[in-house]
């Protein structure tokens, strides 16, 4: 029987293997949860050691970690800051994670975020006069759309010429910085009476409303958090429940198998890049409409790069990315408090973030440091 339709059977076999790898079983619990958890702990310990090495005394180190905790989760305003910082990280991280699943290493979230954010600002002030119920969603959608188009350039180049997306997205990032500088000087976009590159303000009807300002006007948490949660749910559904998500994952796991199974590789690449860009653009749009209220050079503030770390830490899983994004938001908010209370440099937070990534990228190292945290290899799952 196998000699009748060998190729199809082979493909089926491959597809089953593929399915097994993309749906996580209990065995993956350690890789998905324990490794990131330990990576964070080890990074914090190393952070303390680095502080010791730079002649910071023990009480100050203690105080800085208390400040890190208090500033990130210790009060309502700390939570507000943590979540505010995590919104663009999660959104852009979702896009990158989706790209990773499709086998695309997209470094271009920074540029997509800048372009999407700028488009949202422009849409915000040109369409002013509309009621907010139309104005706000349209503004966000235009941001997402422009982000998608910008990312699709890299996807299109890869699909048609084979240009590697790592190179083309890095180049597109550089182009976006200068393009932004130039666009911000155009009379159509530049704020009246200013000679430096800065855009006009986003009118209130296009702003994401602050949702906690009835408690305290200084709480910055805005409605972008609902956009973020909706995006997590949408990406989860897309990746694991929809046909196109299956095509993304299949192409990522084994492009030739996916191709043999009748998936159009070029289409999948462009679509996956476009979706990733839409999410990055949306991240930029929520940032300008929820936090900044305008665009200025470098308003992305490295979010697009931090989001790569978030996607890796979250293991390209929407729920994982949500938690990873909140963790990075907490590090940012807490790091600020660390500087205020203990006078420890904000750069230390950057070091801790980098260490987390190193340990995530090297699970064997984490296993070696914490042998008692993991079940012995070869034992069956469920024994713990």
């Amino acid at each position, binding site marked *: 029987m196998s000699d009748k339709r060998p190729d199809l059977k082979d493909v089926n076999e491959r597809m089953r293997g593929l399915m097994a790898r993309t749906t996580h079983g209990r065995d993956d619990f350690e890789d998905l949860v324990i490794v990131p958890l330990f990576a964070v*702990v080890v990074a914090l310990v190393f952070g303390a050691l680095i502080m010791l090495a730079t002649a910071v005394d*023990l*009480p100050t180190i*203690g*105080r800085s*970690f*208390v400040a890190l905790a208090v*500033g990130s989760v210790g*009060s309502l*305003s700390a939570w507000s*800051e943590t979540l*505010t*910082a995590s919104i663009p990280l999660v959104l852009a991280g979702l896009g990158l994670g989706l790209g990773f699943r499709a086998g695309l290493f997209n470094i271009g979230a920074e540029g997509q975020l800048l372009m999407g954010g700028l488009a949202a600002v422009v849409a915000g002030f040109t369409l002013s006069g509309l009621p907010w119920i139309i104005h706000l969603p349209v503004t966000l959608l235009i941001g997402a759309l422009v982000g998608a188009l910008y990312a699709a350039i890299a996807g299109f180049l890869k699909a048609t010429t084979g240009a590697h997306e790592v190179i083309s997205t890095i180049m597109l990032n550089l182009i976006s910085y200068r393009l932004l*500088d130039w666009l911000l000087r155009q009379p159509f976009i530049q704020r009246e009476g*200013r*000679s*430096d*590159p800065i855009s006009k303000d986003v009118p209130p009807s296009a702003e994401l409303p602050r949702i906690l300002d009835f408690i305290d*006007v*200084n709480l*910055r948490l805005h409605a972008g958090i609902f956009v973020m949660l909706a995006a997590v749910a949408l990406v989860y559904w897309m990746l694991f429940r929809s046909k196109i998500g299956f095509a993304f994952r299949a192409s990522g796991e084994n492009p030739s198998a996916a191709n043999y199974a009748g998936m159009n590789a070029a289409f999948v690449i462009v679509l996956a890049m476009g979706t990733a860009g839409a999410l990055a653009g949306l991240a930029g749009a929520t*940032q300008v409409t929820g*936090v*900044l209220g*305008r665009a*200025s*050079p*470098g*308003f992305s*503030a*490295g979010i697009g790069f931090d989001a790569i770390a978030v996607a890796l830490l979250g293991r390209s899983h929407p729920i994982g990315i949500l938690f990873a994004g909140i963790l990075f938001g907490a590090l940012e*908010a807490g790091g*600020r*408090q660390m*500087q*205020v*209370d203990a*006078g420890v*440099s*904000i750069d230390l937070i950057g070091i801790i973030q980098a260490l987390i990534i190193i340990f995530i990228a090297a699970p064997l190292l984490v296993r070696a440091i*914490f042998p*008692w*945290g993991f079940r012995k290899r070869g034992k069956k799952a469920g024994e*713990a």
Partner: protein
Amino acid sequence: MTFLNKMTTRTGLAAALLAGTVMTASAFTACQVTDTGGIDDAGFNQTAWKGVQDAMAADDSVEGRFLESQAETDYEANLNSLIEGGCDIIVTVGFLMGDATKAAAEANPDQKFSIVDFAYDPTIDNVLGQVYATEQGAFLAGYLAAGMSETGVVGTFGGINIPPVTAFMDGFYYGVNYYNEQKGTDVSVLGWNPESKEGLFTGNFDSLDDGRAFAENLSQEGADIIMPVAGPVGLGSAQLADEMGTDQLKIIGVDADQTQTDPEKADVYLTSVLKRMDSTVTQVINMAQDGSFEGGLIVGTLENEGVGLAPYGAFEDTVPDELKAEIEAVKAGIIDGSITVGM
């Protein structure tokens, strides 16, 4: 799940360690938010922070805290964390923080604010602006540069095209022109045109590489004296001058006396255009302490020594006495109004 138990033990230990550290309360807390570039930028932010340090040194009850902004997006977040931190006064450093400071001041009318380099019109009741007539100091620097240049070409570049930066460049340009008028010379200025408001800008306040590259370009165009107006970016230019030798390239520092803040390269600085943010910041802290604080504006000029020219440092003997005397005369002229800084 043994690892969980161990983790709990560790957390317990850590908590015990921390219990011993209690924050000491002080009578007056002055907080500062820096602009991008960092607190140790040997110029702008560092000078403003020195004002807080001076206030701390003069009065033990004053405690100072600062927060560095790494990007423009940090301004509002940093202000927010300080508003909760029980600061008696919050000093924001930099023109770009104007919007964020205004928003925070309006949302928190009982909190005292002061901002360096921004003047609000109309004034805000709880914000005291600190601005400086830096064009006056830079005018002197331009005159000096024109007198010292051997190639007949001097240069300048800025960080971002905003008034507090271009004020330096304006003054420098007009100072060179004034020298040309007086002496009938034809020294030209590269990097800035005060009429079209266009010139050379690095686009940031933190890349030392840019400082080096921009200085290199200007030097290739013949400039032998360069004034970088971009905070720590200028340190990159100083590095280049150090390598080329000061007979090829001299640097004019800005904000602080850079022979003091950048001592390793002290030899390359012909002089520095001083912007005495330290003195106005200390002044504002004292006003907040004794209750005389009110919203409005403090302006630093040559006359009240809010701006000025630093000593000539390593070039003390190289700068001709005649030129030194002329600069003193020009300074007096600006103060009494007989010389106007401008076209």
